[in-house]
């Protein structure tokens, strides 16, 4: 998000200077000076943001890419402990890490589950959000109360909700199994069985994601003019036809954005997986980011190079998805 803001600002500033140039064409040497003297204030205002973003995003990104081309681990990076200064001894290994990652079944197994996880989460969240938004867009008694209650999961800090779910899911002492036990049903190994654990993490993520989806879609619904529905009713369109031909096209600009955002967030949804199962049982619920974290912080010696490699691969994958998505939308005539 922050990147977008800055690029817009920069683009704006660049646009202004471009206008300046067109008035006085043919003097490229003075262009920069002229632009600076006219717009120095704009540049000064942009500078802090640019610097902060360069430090916060640019540096770690470049460093990550660099580390992924080395064999850096905990044992060979530079560190200063008290008076001892231990210099870095890791070496440049080119694309070896990428070759290793892309030829391992571990990467593709994890990627497979990450894709399943993302598609399931985004799909279910979108459908539920759409249904709830439609329901709450009608005039029903206590509408604002319902809206409030559905937004609540969003208001609670993510880690708090995830911990609450973890207690609910506990096989021996969790509330869910106690309720099932009361009804005479055998305890379900929510987080102890690979398949149940997958369902469990998806459920929690859907629960966390629905409020955002609903609010965004509700906003979209409210921007559809009511006359369209009235006209359709006059023409004898039934509820499904109205939904299919007015609501869905009217929501398209909102839904494309939220689906893309939601995909990126879910693909990298670290806290739900990490706090609920830590990627377990075994590696059943490990997604790419949690596995990258594991390389960097949980195994020893910590493998910074491999972790960075996975990080860069995640970035590339998401960029490819975003580009493909954008192209698909453009074919449908959407401007994005």
């Amino acid at each position, binding site marked *: 998000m922050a990147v977008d803001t800055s690029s817009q600002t920069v683009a704006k500033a660049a646009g202004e200077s471009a206008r300046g140039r067109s008035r006085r064409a043919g003097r490229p040497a003075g262009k920069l000076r002229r632009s600076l003297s006219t717009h120095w*204030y704009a540049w*000064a*205002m942009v500078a*802090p943001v640019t610097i902060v973003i360069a430090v916060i995003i640019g540096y770690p990104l470049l460093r990550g890419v660099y580390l992924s081309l080395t064999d850096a681990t*905990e*044992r060979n*990076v530079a*560190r*200063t*402990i*008290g*008076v*001892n200064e*231990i210099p870095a001894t890791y070496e440049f290994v080119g694309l070896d890490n990428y070759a290793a990652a892309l030829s391992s079944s571990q990467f593709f197994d994890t990627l497979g589950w990450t894709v399943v996880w993302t598609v399931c989460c985004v799909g279910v969240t979108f459908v539920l959000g759409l249904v709830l938004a439609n329901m709450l867009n009608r005039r029903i008694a206590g509408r604002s109360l319902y809206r409030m209650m559905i937004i609540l999961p969003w208001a609670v800090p993510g880690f708090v909700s995830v911990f609450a779910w*973890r207690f609910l899911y*506990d*096989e*021996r*002492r969790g509330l869910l199994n106690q309720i099932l036990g009361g009804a005479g049903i055998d305890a379900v190994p929510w*987080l*102890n*069985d*690979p398949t149940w*654990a997958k369902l469990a993490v998806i459920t929690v993520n859907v629960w966390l994601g629905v409020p955002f989806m609903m609010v965004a879609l509700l906003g979209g619904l409210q921007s559809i003019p009511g006359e369209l529905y009235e006209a359709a009713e006059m023409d004898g369109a039934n509820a499904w036809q109205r939904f299919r031909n007015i609501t869905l096209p009217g929501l398209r600009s909102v839904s494309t954005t939220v689906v893309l955002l939601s995909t990126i967030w879910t693909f990298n949804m670290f806290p739900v997986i990490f706090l609920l*199962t*830590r990627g*377990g*049982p*075994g*590696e*059943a619920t490990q997604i790419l980011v949690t596995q990258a974290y594991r390389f960097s*912080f*949980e*195994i*020893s*010696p*910590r493998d910074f190079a491999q972790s960075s490699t996975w990080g860069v691969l995640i970035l590339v994958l998401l960029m490819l998805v975003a580009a493909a998505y954008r192209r698909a939308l453009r074919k449908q005539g959407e401007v994005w």
Partner: protein
Amino acid sequence: MRRGIAATALVAALAVSATACGGDNGGESGGKSAGGELSGTVTWWDTSTVGSEDKVFKKIAEDFTKLHPEVKVNYVNVPFGEAQNKFKNAAQAGSGAPDVIRSEVAWTPEFADLGYLAPLDGTSALKDEKDFLPQAAASTRYDGKTYAVPQVIDSMGVFYNKKIFKEAGVEVPTTIDELKTVAAAIKDKTGKTGLYLRGDDAYWFLSFLYGEGGDLVDAEKKQVTVDGGAGVKAMKVVKDLVDSKAAITDATNGWDNMQASFKDGKVAMMINGPWAVTDTYAGAEFADRSNLGIAPVPAGSAGQGAPQGGHNLAVYAGSGNLEASYAFTEYMTSAETQAKVAKELSLLPTRNSVYSQPGVASNEIVGFFRPVVDKAVERPWIPETGSLFAPLQTEYTKVLTGQTTPENGAKATAEEYRKLLKDWK
């Protein structure tokens, strides 16, 4: 111009806040004052069990101030499962690390190898070195130097609920086959489960591995042995215990569930060490302490074996207050302190002389574990010992939850080990 001033002020404010972020270090200076008196703050990261052991250790640590009035002890309890990573993060970043850390025996050579620990030879931290049990002292040495002082030593045994055993009319099992028949009898007569097997921590797998005559690695021959016949067999044994319903297990939250099930009398047995004793006594079933029985871990087909573990105290090499940290380490591992810990928490001393002290000699738990520790299997104290659990854990949990076979689990673990230990067979 006025807007220009505002912009300048903004830039200045940013610069100030940026420097403030970096100025975290150097606040804690300490050492010796003019009279040779120690001063400053000593931060100690303890990893003892929260809710039971930590209270005692906090009090003992803070009593250090009675000996050295100018030293302030900052007691921090870091959960055992997080401490290794948290210390590495802080030590590598060079800020936020404690002065003294309670380092598990397998972590110590690793921390030392990474250069995070201060060598203690010739400092005031080491006193009466000859008094330490040799197997406790072994893990504190790395590359010819001493990097830690042994604080407690431990091994594992079977904790059992005597009441449930009496109800079911069975005796404590001595082998894994007996364990299965006993568990079946308990289920039959009382409806309770026999054993809680920890499935989310591979340390609890070791006694089964040793019982089949296996080991993770053979450091002398530079060989990975976990995928040998014994390793596969041990995986089959634990899987069978769960499949036959002799044991229950969890892939997450194992410690809490194990303690809760045993303390509430829902399972009759668990495999555990002295560190669990105080917490177990707090359970409803053990209000009468004599209801808790302890026996050696059941033997596998090759015999009986439990891992030797324990904790050391180590001093962070980047500590701003080394002198006081050495003195604190010496105090915490002194015979007097160890006797107090043994009496109050039933933890095993690392000094020979402490065992004969009144109150320690009569402690039932200490009395039981002393010979167990003597027979316990010692792990090789190489830097990689602390790294062997993560790969094993993943495969161990996979085997228990049926995601892989015992053979493939052992094989996958060994593959990870061979990546870790270059040039080993």
